[in-house]
């Protein structure tokens, strides 16, 4: 998108300017890591940095205040075009607008420019083209869709059914809730999955008089959200950002990641049961009593209408099918993308509540959406300030060869461990966005380009997701787990979390490394 624009603006960026913006990027990352201490929401932190970046970018003259070309069907290297060029020089911004007029005069022959053919030039605020609207649409649409679908009582119905099936046995309950966490994380999103399963865990363990096991349960579920978040392309934001940049389809993503998710889930639950002493009920009396206690849960309680329940179920299945087949939908429909599918399904579900949709709009996580939009703008400015190019340059010196079809072992390990380490102390979304841009710019093979994506993309995906399990601030879902722990007056400090989580995180990251090196390079 920015080929022409970047070519015309980057030339005048000095090292001092790049250094200044790099410092701002570090500042943003630090502030996000200290979000809790600052008592500021992510959107506010990122928003302030966006304002500063745009202001400084404009003062330094690094931003391309051009008309944006839309409606262009192709980008053609200038040398390939046979025709007459009208060069429109913009003195203020030192760049060229080029129009093809059908003659054979090659005024620009030899220049390494790409031309948009058949497009329209529109005036647009500088912060608009920087935002990845596809990602925003997926997040907004799917969160609205999940929110309305949850009103059908479907998720609580499944959760209570699972609880009753376990018969109240703590060990069975741990495995049942663990698997449910993974499935919900995959189908919904990590935070919603943690909220649903964590809430039910607290209520059911209280009912079973097993509150002593609550901390262990919640911790394991928190860790499993990040494992489940690896299952599909839309399960977590890093998957969406990195996966779409690498051109990985929904089905490919699922088939590739599911063996790891199955093994890692089992390993986490096995370790959890042993480390937190979650055992089977020993006597028949204990089993009968537990079964009687969980039998008092009524899975039908939250279902206002069976018609809407089945409609919600059918729509959820259809939603997953449509998202899975988004890239192979007929004709130009596939170009509408997953964001359109998510928004369309949200719109259809909202018809049921057409007179009270404002309630659902209120429940949208605007902080998260604001954060993403601000973050994309910051990354956009960083691109123009050559910060990403500089980081890419540093990466190139550390890595052996990014462009290889089969990723180098050292490159894979460095990216996976690096992503995990970075994700453990701050938000994994800026990391994913930044690394996706850098890998793309440095020519890492993508599925859409060379047919098979490089293992480096997977190293970033696994690292960014699993790194969140190292600390309580590493991911939003582990933060939700800690919030529920604190809500129940259980003590869990930062250090205590790290001590408890580190054996699991090491096992999961170690397993991921073996998996990526053996099967995904």
């Amino acid at each position: 998108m920015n080929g022409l624009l970047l070519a015309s603006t980057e030339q005048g960026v000095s090292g001092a300017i790049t250094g200044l913006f790099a410092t701002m990027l570090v500042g943003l990352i630090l502030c996000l890591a200290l979000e809790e201490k600052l008592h500021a929401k992510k959107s506010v932190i990122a928003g302030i940095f966006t304002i500063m970046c745009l202001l400084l970018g404009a003062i330094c003259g690094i931003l391309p205040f051009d008309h944006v070309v839309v409606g262009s069907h192709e980008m053609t290297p200038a040398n390939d075009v046979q025709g007459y060029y009208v060069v429109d020089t913009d003195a203020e911004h030192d760049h060229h607008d080029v129009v093809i007029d059908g003659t054979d005069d090659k005024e620009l022959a030899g220049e390494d420019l790409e031309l948009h053919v058949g497009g329209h030039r529109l005036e647009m605020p500088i912060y608009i083209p920087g935002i990845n609207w596809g990602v925003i649409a997926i997040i907004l649409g799917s969160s609205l869709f999940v929110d309305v679908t949850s009103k059908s009582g479907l998720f609580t119905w499944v959760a209570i059914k699972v609880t009753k099936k376990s018969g109240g046995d703590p060990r069975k309950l741990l495995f049942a809730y663990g698997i449910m966490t993974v499935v919900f994380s995959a189908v919904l999103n990590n935070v919603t999955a943690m909220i649903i399963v964590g809430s039910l865990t607290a209520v059911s363990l209280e009912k079973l008089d097993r509150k002593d096991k609550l901390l262990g349960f919640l911790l394991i579920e928190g860790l499993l959200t990040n494992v489940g978040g690896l299952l599909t392309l839309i399960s977590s934001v890093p998957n969406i950002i990195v996966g779409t940049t690498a051109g990985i389809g929904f089905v490919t993503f699922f088939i590739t990641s599911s063996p790891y998710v199955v093994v890692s889930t089992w390993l986490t639950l096995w370790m959890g049961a042993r480390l937190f002493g979650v055992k089977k009920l020993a006597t028949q009396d204990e089993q009968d009593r537990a079964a009687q206690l969980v039998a008092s849960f009524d899975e039908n309680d939250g279902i206002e209408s069976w018609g809407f329940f089945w409609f919600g179920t059918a729509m959820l299945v259809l939603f997953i099918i449509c998202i899975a087949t988004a890239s192979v939908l007929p004709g130009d429909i596939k170009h509408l993308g997953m964001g359109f599918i998510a928004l369309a399904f949200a719109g259809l579900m909202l018809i049921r509540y057409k007179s009270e949709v404002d309630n659902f709009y209120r429940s949208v996580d605007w902080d998260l959406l604001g954060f993403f939009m601000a973050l994309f703008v910051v990354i956009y400015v960083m691109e123009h300030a050559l910060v990403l190019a500089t980081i890419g340059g540093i990466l190139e010196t550390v890595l052996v060869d990014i462009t290889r079809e089969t990723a180098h072992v050292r490159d894979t390990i460095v990216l996976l461990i690096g992503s995990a380490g970075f994700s453990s102390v701050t938000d994994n979304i800026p990391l994913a966005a930044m690394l996706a841009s850098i890998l793309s710019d440095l020519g890492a093979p993508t599925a859409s380009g060379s047919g098979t994506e490089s293992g480096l993309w997977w190293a970033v995906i696994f690292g960014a997701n699993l790194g969140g399990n190292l600390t309580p601030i590493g991911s939003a879902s582990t933060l939700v787990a800690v919030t529920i722990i604190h809500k129940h007056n259980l003590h869990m400090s930062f250090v205590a979390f790290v001590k408890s989580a580190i054996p699991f995180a090491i096992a999961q990251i170690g397993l991921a490394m073996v998996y990526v090196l053996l099967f995904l390079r």
Partner: protein
Amino acid sequence: MTNIDQFVSAFKAADKPQFSPETVKLDSVAVVTDLASPDADRFHDDVRRFLGASSAPQIRIILGERFRDVDELLREIDKTPTDLICTHRNLHTQAPEHPYSLGAYVDVLTQVSTIPVLLLPNPHTTHDSDFAANNRDAVMAITGQLTGDHHLVSFAAKMTAPTGRLYLTHIEDEMTYERYVETISRIPAIDTDVARTEILQALLKLPHDYIRSCRNVLHDTYASLSIEEIVTMGHHLADYKRLITEHNIDLLVLNTKDEDQLAMHGLAYPLVIELRSTPLLLL
């Protein structure tokens, strides 16, 4: 539904207390009265007739001459294991002088003894003594918090005639509710209309669910018993008085013990004082 509290609420709402029946023993009954013979014998017979099939063969009488204070009465009762005490108000007191009191004996019995007390209309006032003609066809269980009160419901079911009607009731105090809604209306962060509707629904749903569970479980033991549900918002005393008249209630079953205080349960006391012609089983 994307925050923790919303899902916790949904799961808590789905957790419905199930009725767990308790075994009620009525093997040994003590009739306590200050009447002299032959009135005492007639009262004794009236009690036997009223208890009918649910009474045990062992019904003994403790006459007024055998106790002069509460301690003596308690000692008399404790001589034999007792499942139920049947008595009337104003023992050793002139009833007409204290029409709105229970008398020291009944007051203390309900506080210190764990044995249920069946408080019958005072035989000293002749117009109240026809209770024995009633056959416990209509029994009403009332409490401030019906949900989870297995003991109360079990007793009420046991005391109802096999083919009778058992009314399980719950009246939520309207004045308290209105006071809270009025307070909520002064808090900008809470939508008053939503709060009014949702709180009312939640308050009434809990006893409704519990009564449904009671009905399912009791049906196994008391197949011919008709279990009626009355769950509404209103004024405790006025509405219970109205319901008792409307449904020709033969026996009212209610809790009098309060874990937080020695005095009788706040809901029970005004009912016990005012409902002088209805037999009351005080648990």
